[in-house]
């Protein structure tokens, strides 16, 4: 009987797949075309194989018919939500199909899939897919629990459990989510039931399962000790100790205390043993650093502990809000009548849109609740209940105002929206789990390491943080409570939201020009752009909206809080998932989505301590804004910009897009083609200018917002180990303009040599005197002191010496610093905040030389002290020339032809890239290219 039932289920499943496919193709066009295309392509292939399977299984065709009609009935109801649902169904069905497949091949081994290659690929795909499904189930369940819908969560878990194919995807941790819920409610019998389910599924309870059970017992005041002992015994049989529970579990809220209470009722003396799993760094390169630290002290920041704690509170409130609205620097511009009018219009419209979106969102949610006919299917409903409805609407409105006039690809837009929802959800989760209070207390204690008014420590931030976490072990665990959403989920959710926006946001077409017919037109539209033979879904704003936004020049900008620098020292990285911001999730390693292998490898990495510690060191550096420079930059920015100084001009400076009537017979075909090209160029130029302008606007506005504050940049890395500040717009790795606006928060007296270094730095920034010795550079600086002081005193109307430098803005900042220093009563006591750069020459070769203890090499790449900067490229060119002369003398034709052409420039690129693995072939091409560039070279 059971087998018959299984078979029936399987055939249902097959139909489901087919149906999902049909739905998928019919569903409305608002979808991220590329990934969807890929999915559908994948699915097509599968469907083909599927059909073969289906034929095999067609033993009881009668059962299929009712199944099909049922399925189509569902389809009729779900049209509104098809796009998302189809995708859901697709995911689930894919996995189910595979299950049925494995069954079939089990049953008749003779009919195994044909070729091994296919099976292998299938295997790999299966593995990846299973992870995705597991993750999706987990996220779904967690979302249900988060929104407090116990009934829905329980029903969902049971339905997953009942469907055999799904049951295979479930892990103990998924069951544990539900156990936790019942533990909070103190209903022990429900937990017992889940233990039975676990057994049915052939899974073993793990530490978290027992922890939930015990927690539940701890919550029940009159739970008989006998029950607790039995539970502990059972746990022992499973090979788990009580210490394991405390060591390995991730606790939320008061779970840990309840667990301890339960344990202590039967073992009153029990205290969890705490050990810091301090595996020391294995790399011999850094071994000494970690072991010989008797004389090390961790440098103090120039803040008192109280000050740091106050700063923490500020940052916390910023992150709790998730978004920051700041004044745009353009707000300083005078307001014209038209601007006022446009701002009013926009505000009016926005209020209207807010209402419309709120209603649409509610309607969509209603539809979703009603159409969820099958419990085991995942839909988006719980993800739409994580935040207040109004918050979703705010996110939508925010993304409308941030949409560039040339539009954004649907995929990027959707992912952005999904991610924003996820971030908010994470922050809320942390609240719900009472992590904020704990974070506060640990951070408070952590500041002891950094503050100047506390005792000196010789531990690193990471070590201090871990120690504190261990000491304050009661309450929730700080790390690891949030599951990160799969990429597909972010996209689906985002697409759903975009769909609501596209369908509901409208504007009157006569709003700007009463001559037009009055009717409601959508402000966003979905279209395709075509890149070679691919088509990409795009969301574009209606020209009317763009015009309104540009003319209104709104005075505020809204950013995600993670875009801003932090107001307190960042949380030190202690694991690859924990560090940087206080509440906002951050990644240790930047990765493109889908690079799951990278992430897997990262998780397996045994000892990342040196990585954490380096990042923490970078992140702990405090910065502040160089106000005089910022003011000058903003004044130019708000005036007309300057291409020469790298300040993007406003769109009013853009070339006018020529208008012409293509029907006009006065133009010849080639004239028309020419004008058309011109229009295209003008449009391209405009959109480039717009994006540059916006980028600069963001940077300067953030800098302006931060002008009186001290701040920190949390850092992370890419897979190569290059470090980056997390805030994307305004940071010290940016262009000349942004770098010039930043100085260190903590100043130091210049001392006897400081002023000289400032001068040398200035000469370096100009790009002149590259061949001179340091002394030569210093002398040059002294010889042009008049220009330097003039630049500092009258940057815009004086001799403008600084404008000719390679890095003009930093040069100007340096001029001002030098001016201030020399005019101070005692330059050696002048407190400077100014960063002075040190640069390498051909860094790859420097490493090679150092690793090889190569004295000659080291000298030529400036690793050995030398009077004048060495130039390795000239050296190589010289040697090549020597060999060439010798070959030429021997009568080698090529060598003779090359006479007089071996220059520094010819060899430079190849020398530089040879250490990064350029091949012989590639090197040959590089040299060929350089030679071709020489005009006199015989072709």
């Amino acid at each position, binding site marked *: 009987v059971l087998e018959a039932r299984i078979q029936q289920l399987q055939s249902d499943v097959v139909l489901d797949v087919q149906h999902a496919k049909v739905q998928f*193709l*019919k569903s*409305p*066009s608002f979808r991220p*075309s590329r990934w969807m295309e890929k999915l559908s392509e994948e699915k097509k292939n599968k469907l083909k194989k599927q059909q073969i399977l289906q034929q095999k299984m067609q033993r009881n065709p009668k059962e299929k018919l009712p199944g099909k009609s049922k399925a189509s009935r569902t389809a009729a109801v779900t049209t509104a939500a098809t796009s998302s649902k189809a995708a859901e169904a697709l995911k689930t069905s894919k996995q189910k199909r595979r299950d049925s497949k494995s069954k079939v091949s089990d049953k008749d081994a003779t009919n195994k899939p044909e070729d091994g290659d296919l099976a292998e690929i299938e295997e790999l795909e299966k593995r990846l897919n299973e992870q995705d499904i597991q993750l999706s189930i987990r996220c779904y369940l967690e979302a249900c629990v988060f929104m407090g819908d116990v009934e829905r969560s329980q029903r969902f878990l049971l339905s997953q459990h009942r469907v055999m194919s799904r049951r295979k995807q479930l892990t103990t941790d998924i069951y544990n989510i539900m156990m936790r819920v019942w533990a909070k409610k103190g209903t022990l019998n429900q937990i017992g039931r889940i233990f039975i389910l676990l057994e049915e599924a052939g899974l073993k309870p793990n530490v978290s399962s027992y922890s939930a059970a015990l927690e539940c017992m701890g919550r029940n005041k009159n739970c008989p000790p006998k029950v607790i002992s039995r539970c502990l015994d059972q746990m022992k049989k499973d090979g788990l100790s009580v210490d394991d529970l405390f060591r390995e579990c991730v606790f939320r809220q008061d779970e840990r205390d309840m667990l301890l209470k339960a344990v202590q009722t039967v073992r009153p003396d029990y205290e969890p043993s705490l050990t810091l799993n301090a595996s020391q760094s294995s790399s011999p390169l850094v071994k000494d650093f970690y072991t010989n630290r008797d004389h090390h002290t961790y440098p103090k920041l120039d803040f008192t502990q109280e000050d740091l704690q106050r700063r923490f509170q500020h940052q916390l409130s910023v992150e709790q809000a998730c978004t920051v609205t700041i004044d745009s620097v353009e707000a300083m511009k005078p307001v014209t009548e038209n601007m006022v009018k446009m701002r009013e219009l926009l505000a009016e419209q926005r209020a209207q849109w807010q209402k419309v979106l709120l209603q649409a969102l509610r309607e969509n949610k209603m539809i979703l609740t009603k159409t969820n006919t099958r419990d085991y299917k995942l839909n988006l409903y719980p993800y739409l209940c994580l935040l207040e409805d109004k918050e979703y609407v705010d996110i939508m409105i925010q993304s409308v105002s941030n949409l560039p006039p040339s539009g954004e690809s649907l995929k990027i837009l959707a992912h952005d929206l999904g991610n924003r929802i996820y971030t908010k959800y994470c922050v809320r989760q942390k609240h719900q789990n009472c992590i904020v209070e704990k974070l506060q207390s640990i951070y408070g204690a952590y500041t002891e390491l950094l503050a100047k008014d506390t005792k000196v420590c010789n531990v690193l931030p990471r070590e201090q943080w871990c120690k504190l976490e261990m000491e304050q072990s009661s309450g929730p665990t700080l790390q690891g409570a949030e599951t990160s959403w799969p990429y597909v989920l972010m996209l689906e959710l985002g697409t759903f939201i975009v769909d609501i926006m596209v369908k509901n946001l409208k504007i009157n*077409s006569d709003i700007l020009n009463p001559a*037009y*017919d009055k*009717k*409601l*037109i*959508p402000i966003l*539209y*979905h*279209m*395709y*752009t*075509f*890149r*070679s*033979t*691919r*088509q990409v879904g795009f969301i*574009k704003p*209606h*020209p009317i909206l763009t015009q309104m936004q540009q003319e209104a020049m709104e005075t505020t900008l809204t950013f995600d809080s993670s875009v801003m620098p932090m107001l307190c020292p960042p949380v030190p990285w202690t694991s690859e998932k924990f560090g940087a911001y206080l509440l906002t999730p951050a990644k240790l390693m930047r990765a493109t989505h889908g690079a799951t292998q990278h992430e897997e490898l990262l998780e397996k990495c045994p000892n990342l301590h040196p990585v954490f510690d380096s990042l923490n060191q970078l992140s702990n550096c405090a910065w502040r804004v160089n106000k005089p420079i910022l003011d000058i930059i903003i004044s130019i920015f708000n005036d007309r910009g300057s291409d020469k100084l790298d300040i993007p001009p406003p769109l009013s400076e853009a070339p006018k897009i020529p208008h012409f009537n*293509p*029907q006009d017979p006065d133009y010849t*075909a080639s004239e*028309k*083609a020419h004008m*058309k090209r011109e*229009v*295209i160029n003008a*449009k391209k130029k405009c959109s480039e200018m717009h994006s540059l302008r916006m980028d600069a606007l963001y940077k300067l506005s953030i800098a302006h917002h931060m002008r009186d504050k001290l701040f920190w940049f949390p850092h992370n890395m890419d897979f190569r180990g290059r470090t980056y500040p997390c805030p994307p717009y305004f940071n010290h790795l940016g262009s000349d303009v942004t770098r010039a606006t930043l100085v260190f928060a903590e100043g130091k007296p210049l001392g006897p040599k400081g002023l000289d270094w400032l001068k040398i730095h200035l000469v370096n920034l100009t790009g002149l005197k590259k061949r001179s010795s340091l002394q030569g550079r210093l002398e040059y600086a002294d010889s042009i002191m008049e220009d330097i002081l003039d630049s500092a005193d009258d940057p815009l109307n004086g001799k403008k010496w600084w404008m000719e430098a390679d890095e003009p803005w930093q040069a100007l900042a340096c001029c001002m610093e030098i001016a201030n220093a020399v005019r101070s009563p005692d330059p050696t006591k002048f407190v400077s905040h100014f960063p002075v750069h040190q640069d390498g020459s051909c860094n790859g070769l420097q490493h090679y030389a150092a690793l090889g203890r190569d004295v000659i090499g080291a000298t030529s790449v400036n690793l050995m002290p030398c009077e004048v900067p060495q130039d390795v490229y000239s050296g190589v060119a010289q040697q090549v020339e020597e060999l060439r002369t010798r070959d030429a003398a021997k009568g080698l034709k090529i060598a003779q032809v090359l006479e007089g052409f071996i220059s520094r420039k010819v060899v430079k690129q190849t020398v530089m890239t040879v250490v990064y693995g350029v091949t012989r072939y590639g090197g040959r091409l590089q040299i060929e290219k350089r030679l071709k560039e020489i005009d006199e070279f015989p072709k």
Partner: protein
Amino acid sequence: MGPSSHQPRSERTSPSSTLAHRNLSAAAVQGQFRPLCRYNYLDLGEVEENLRRAQASKIMRHFIVNPDLANVVAQHLVPDLQDAKTIIFECNPGPGVLTKALLNAGAQRVVALERDRTFLPDLQELESRLDGQLEVVHCDYFRLDPIGNGNVKPPTMFTDKLFTDLGISESAWTDDVPVKVVGFLPERNGRGTLLKMVYALFERLSVYRYGRIELNLFINEREYTKLMSRPGEMIFYRAFGVLWQMACDIQLLHKEPWESFTVSSRQSARNSKSKLPNDHLCLVRLRPRADLFSSGLTPSNASTLLMMVKQCLAKRKVKLIDRLNVWSPDSGSKLLSELGLPEDILTGNVYPDEYLRLFQLMDKSQEFTQSWLYEEILENTQREGWG
């Protein structure tokens, strides 16, 4: 005139052992002569020798080496050849077998556009032996009018230069076909090339400035099937097919298995991912319709038509009415009823001529000219949009 090359007739038809198994459908043309041919008969050359030369080409491409096949192709182009005004552009003749066959068949003026320098000397030698019936140009027809602004040097060329050098002047659209092009559609990026050409056709740019240029191209069977797919074939009914069907009378002249052609050495294996059969190369005639620009469509508003068709057919299973309403709210049902189409018709079920009529209606209506569709076109002219 090259009388020295005149050789006994028997050799011309002697079948090569390597090609003996070939099944040529039109073997009947063997030995036929154009009675009109005023010139000495040109020998098509040793098959073995031509084969060797073709295979030595470094660029992956197909050649006609077999004299019988060359004659068949020539016959298809012949009927109008008596008319001295029609010029034949032969793209990439290679060893020149088809070139000679065309001349033998009575072509009055053949222009050989060869991209590969290695074939030029022999072609030029042939040119010098004739009396102006053949002109050889180092040029790649499929790379005429490049988009970028780099340095243009042969074989890349601008149409103006080519046509001016050849002394061909612009003619009206409704005039007779001034030039017939014969050649192989490049296997690599064939679709892109077809799209580029159809855009040029609608906007009367590139060669189409000079009139209704007729293409006679060898297209692989799969691409041909897609080109000719009809509404309802949701997978293959795409914008490029619709546009070609709208613009041209398309006729399949001849179908020939791949084996009959010679491939230069670096042949990449034909991938067999698609379900469509792909065993032949099809000689397809694409003759632009004389009445294309007669009712409302002009080269200047054609870009909007291109845009419209591409947007519609990006997905074939969406309702046309939804698309129309996106462009201009509430106008969809009116337009559809004017066209006599059902309200719920899918974009993949609309015939090419219906799209043309739809566009003509839209272009007349004030509502649509206000729509963003018109704003978009200029961004999408050439570089993008070969989709």
